[in-house]
């Protein structure tokens, strides 16, 4: 008679009693749920920073666009080209063209100081000098306010992230760079990408302002297709007049995000791990008290013929349900509190601020649920085994 269906019926029945008796143990239950919610909330919250940063970087590059740097350079900061080199790069095979010519933008990159709105302290903000094709070589770039700067003029256009994070970047205001004043004439978005953290101006004007002659630091190109990358790269690396490093935009930004996301992820997991140890003890306590409060009930069920294995599984399920409740609560709180929360952080590759939005992704929520489940199962196991091993005859007389 003790088939699997019968066994499941036993598990279901015992689980039901446990869940129904939770209101009688509401103090311990609440403490456990909140403890686990805290773990999941912190974990998801911290990891959403890494996910948001990675998303900002991923949004910056597409596989049919490439960045060309000087060979050996890890970032634009340490790269450099002359005008002739940038022409050779723009004319390489595989570069897409429009009526104006190749979709290639030779760019230079300097860092200026602007006060953060949140703290008033100065932060490094990237000021990028671009060429005419800059908009075409990037995805999703569009103006949300004002207009593009005029070529040859001391004007800047500002990314929405930069405008939000740093003071004095509203359209109509003016920033001081070097000895010159630069009016802000427009604000653009770029689908959450890194460009949103930048201030843009005409490369030629920037060269003059910073006495850079006719030098650049990088060339951004749009390729005919993602498949054209290898041919483009081979052509440049085989060219004896060039010593370059050719990277897909998507790979470049992924690489740039690695250090920070790894650091944040490690910290997040470490903090959540320590909290999880506490939460496991909370779950243990709750489930031990659940077993203690229901000693006679469990013994009665076992006397009636309910199996010890069914008791173990049912108590584990009960613990899991508590943990999932906590996990769901933590996930919801993390989502409400952190998703799309705007922040800026240092990109250690470019030593400049990158603005981004925290991203509570479905993967992170799934990760939170897995952590909660693990806490629930670990916290439920010992009390469940204890319940199943209670001597029935003695336990039946417990008051």
């Amino acid at each position: 008679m003790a088939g699997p269906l019968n066994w499941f019926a036993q598990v279901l029945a015992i689980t039901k009693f446990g869940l129904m008796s939770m209101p009688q143990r509401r103090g311990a239950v609440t403490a456990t749920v909140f403890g686990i919610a805290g773990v999941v909330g912190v974990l998801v919250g911290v990891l959403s920073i890494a996910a948001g940063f990675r998303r900002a970087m991923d949004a910056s590059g597409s596989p049919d666009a490439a960045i060309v740097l000087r060979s050996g350079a890890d970032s634009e900061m340490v790269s450099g080209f002359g005008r002739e080199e940038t022409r050779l790069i723009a004319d390489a095979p595989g570069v897409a063209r429009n009526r104006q010519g190749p979709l290639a933008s030779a760019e230079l990159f300097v860092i200026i100081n602007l006060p953060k709105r949140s703290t008033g302290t100065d932060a490094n903000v990237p000021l990028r000098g671009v060429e005419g094709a800059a908009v075409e070589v990037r995805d999703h770039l569009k103006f949300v306010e004002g207009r593009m700067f005029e070529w040859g003029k001391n004007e800047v256009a500002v990314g929405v992230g930069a405008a939000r994070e740093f003071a004095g970047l509203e359209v109509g205001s003016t920033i001081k760079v070097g000895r010159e004043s630069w009016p802000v004439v427009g604000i653009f978005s770029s689908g959450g990408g890194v460009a949103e953290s930048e201030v843009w101006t005409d490369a030629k004007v920037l060269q003059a302002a910073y006495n850079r002659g006719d030098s650049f630091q990088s060339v951004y190109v749009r390729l005919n297709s993602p498949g054209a990358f290898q041919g483009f790269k081979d052509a440049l690396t085989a060219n004896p007049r060039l010593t370059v490093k050719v990277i897909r935009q998507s790979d470049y930004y992924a690489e740039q995000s690695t250090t920070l996301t790894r650091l944040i992820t490690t910290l997040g997991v470490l903090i959540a791990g320590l909290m999880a140890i506490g939460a496991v003890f909370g779950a243990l306590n709750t489930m031990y008290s659940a077993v203690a409060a229901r000693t006679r009930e469990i013994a009665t069920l076992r006397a009636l013929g309910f199996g010890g294995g069914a008791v173990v599984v049912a108590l584990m399920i009960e613990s899991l349900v508590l943990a999932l409740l906590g996990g769901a609560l933590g996930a919801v709180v993390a989502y409400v509190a952190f998703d799309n929360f705007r922040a800026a952080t240092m990109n250690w590759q470019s030593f400049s601020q990158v603005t981004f939005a925290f991203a509570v992704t479905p993967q992170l929520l799934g990760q939170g649920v897995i952590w909660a489940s693990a806490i629930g199962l670990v916290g439920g196991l010992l009390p469940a085994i204890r319940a199943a091993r209670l001597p029935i005859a003695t336990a039946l007389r417990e008051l």
Partner: protein
Amino acid sequence: MSDDPTNSGTLVRVDGVDKVFHRGEEAIHILSNLHLAVPAGQFLALMGPSGSGKSTLLNLIGGLDRPTKGTVAIAGERVDALSDRQLAGWRARHIGFVFQLYNLMPVLTAERNVELPLLLTHLSKVERQKHVATALAMVGLSHRAKHYPRTLSGGEQQRVGIARGIVTDPTLLLCDEPTGDLDRKAGDEILNLLQALNHEHGKTIIMVTHDPHAAARATRTVYLNKGQLSHEPVT
């Protein structure tokens, strides 16, 4: 002493049973070389002073505990030789328990409490409901089926406990001080019920009790003292 009624139709046979508990280094002998035979259809009262081992013997017969030595056989099946898992299934099939403190699930209604042992069978929900209704009718509590234990009197709770004990039509009904927590009137109702189950339905019942008034309702009484059985009250 050895209890030796006629062997024909013996349902419960306890042979040479010792039960020893250990408290630290100390060994406490609860039962010593105990023999008991209970024929099918008997209503046996098991009496004795506190600590005499009445409940221990009941637990051994009900497969809730194992003897240190000796054998316990119910309907010819050696209970002491079964594994824990087999014992659980065996109890579900053959034993109905009635407890002194009723041991009902507070979160379940009377009918759901009675249904519990049926969850261990392959009966459909409809069949289970029929069995539950019959058991509750037998104990006169059909009208209280939807009530939770906390809303029932002690006597009513014990009747629910009895309904739960008999709902699977077990081979043997084991009652541990079934009237021990009830006043005289409610206790009498329970004893009437047990007597009716024995007389009218042929249920074999073993009842542990302190109360001579309760024992008087049984068809046979045995006394347990210092781990041994006798037919005479302990003086």
